[in-house]
């Protein structure tokens, strides 16, 4: 933002038109909704995209491992699809985040940066432990199947749950608890099945979350 006007040299425009209480309540409700929509990077469309990404990414890995006997782990082709869709997801989230936070400064911006750094370190640790497990002689099915998919989702889910709880974001808390349950439950499907189970279950959870977000954006408020 360049050259914003000096607030001490204001023109004398006024908008002192009286408001009917009902009119004021409608204006307040409309403005609050619009502000929350514009300042929050999360949206039903972004969640819908996340559902597609989860299905495509985990589905591609499942297709690459389902015929392996013994289990060797995701093939390069499967990993290329996984990384491509994950990069698309990261790109869209960053775009939405930057768009929503243009002109916003203060505590929450610094807090989000710190959270992002903490999440990055936690995800990196998942892959360090994966290398340690392989080094210790754990089977490919455990290291490159059950562990890597489950641990990644657990870290993401627990991180988001803690973040949502601090902000009293109950919708986000519900989503993250569902992700943790999906991760833990899918681990029982074994090294091949875990990818399919994660992909399908996450897709369903994210579709439900997207629908809930859309419904809440449309639902009338009861507080004013």
């Amino acid at each position, binding site marked *: 933002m360049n050259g914003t006007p000096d607030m001490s040299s204001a*023109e004398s425009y006024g*908008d002192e038109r009286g408001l009917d209480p*009902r009119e004021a*309540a409608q204006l307040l409700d409309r403005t609050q909704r619009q502000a929350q929509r514009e300042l929050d990077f999360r949206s039903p469309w972004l969640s819908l995209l996340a559902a597609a990404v989860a299905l495509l990414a985990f589905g591609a890995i499942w297709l690459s491992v389902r015929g392996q006997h013994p289990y060797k782990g995701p093939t390069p082709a499967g990993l290329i699809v996984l990384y491509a869709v994950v990069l698309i997801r990261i790109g869209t989230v960053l775009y939405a985040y930057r768009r929503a936070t243009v002109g*916003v*400064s*203060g505590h929450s911006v610094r807090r989000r940066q710190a959270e992002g750094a903490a999440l990055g370190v936690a995800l990196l640790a998942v892959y360090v432990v994966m290398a340690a497990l392989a080094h210790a002689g754990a089977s490919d099915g455990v290291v490159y199947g059950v562990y890597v998919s489950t641990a990644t989702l657990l870290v993401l889910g627990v991180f988001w749950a803690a973040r949502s709880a601090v902000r009293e974001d109950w919708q986000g808390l519900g989503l993250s608890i569902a992700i943790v349950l999906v991760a833990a439950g899918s681990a029982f499907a074994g090294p091949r099945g875990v990818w399919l189970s994660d992909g399908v279950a996450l897709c369903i959870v994210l579709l439900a979350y997207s629908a809930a977000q859309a419904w809440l954006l449309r639902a009338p408020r009861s*507080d*004013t």
Partner: protein
Amino acid sequence: MTADTLDPLIHAPARLQIMATLAALPDGDALSFTRLQDMIRLTPGNLITHLRRLEDADYLTSEKTGAGPASRTSVALTHRGRAALDDYTETLRGLLNGL
């Protein structure tokens, strides 16, 4: 209870929009003047007038950083401003329930 019981500083369309928009930010965050102007679609002069009135009442604070074309003005609700908006909302709810 009548509409006269509503805080006259907030009970004007432009100022109500300013307060409601800034209240959507987490406590301690500020919004740049141009982003606020984009969001509530007021002319710069009109927006400044209303911001100054709210600042005089200690409902918001403004901070200007930089100088010349690179200057940037940010505005944020104060605790007093947030409390005033909460009171306004409560009073409005009471009025609507009484209608």
